[in-house]
């Protein structure tokens, strides 16, 4: 798999985790997109340093070749997948803690499924 293909696989995995596996539905929530917009700005800075200095070098055969602030355009999808997967797991674990009988948050037994 080239980087272009594997980044699309990662995006699909993250979306399946969010919408299907953990059902956190971050892709439909404003709080996620606003957070991602902030993360994106900082990603462009950090990625620009890592790829522009450069600390990491890409084989031209594995990427499309389009670059955004020094970094291959694939890196944008890499960052998006990383953000979506990380936050989906984080939110799902928080939900679990809130539902636990003696966990933090509201202790709710026998509550109907939300």
């Amino acid at each position, binding site marked *: 798999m080239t980087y272009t293909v594997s980044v699309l696989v990662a995006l699909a995995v993250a979306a399946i985790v969010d919408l299907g596996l953990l059902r956190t539905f971050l892709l439909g929530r404003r709080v996620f997109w606003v957070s991602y917009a*902030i*993360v994106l700005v900082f990603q462009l800075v950090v990625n620009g340093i890592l790829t522009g200095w450069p600390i*990491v070098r890409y*084989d031209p055969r594995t990427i499309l070749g389009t670059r955004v602030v020094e970094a291959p355009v694939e890196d944008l999808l890499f960052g998006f997948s990383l953000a979506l997967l990380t936050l989906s*797991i984080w939110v799902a674990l928080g939900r679990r803690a809130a539902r636990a009988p003696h966990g933090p948050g509201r202790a709710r037994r026998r509550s109907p499924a939300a």
Partner: protein
Amino acid sequence: MAHWGYLLVLAACLIITLPLELGLRTRVYARWQRLLLTLTPVMIMFGGWDLYAVSRHQWSYDRARVLVVLPGRLPLEEWLFFVVIPICIILSFEAVRRVRPNWRDPEA
């Protein structure tokens, strides 16, 4: 000094986002067990992908700008990347939730 390059970039990320924990009280580091549980699968998936890509020579790291290259040809800093960057992402997310509590998912 260049050997510290990648590590300094990661350290800067942690320093810049620290006020979110201390000032906005995002309580991300405070919930360290939940944080560890989040980081582990992320690290396995993205670290595994990184190992695959490096083994296929899709990208490589400048040995002059990292401190230690571990087995699998990934620098130590690349593994730390998958700790530091997810922490920054979660801090940003929790900061938005603190500033805009009405956007908060009642279940999370």
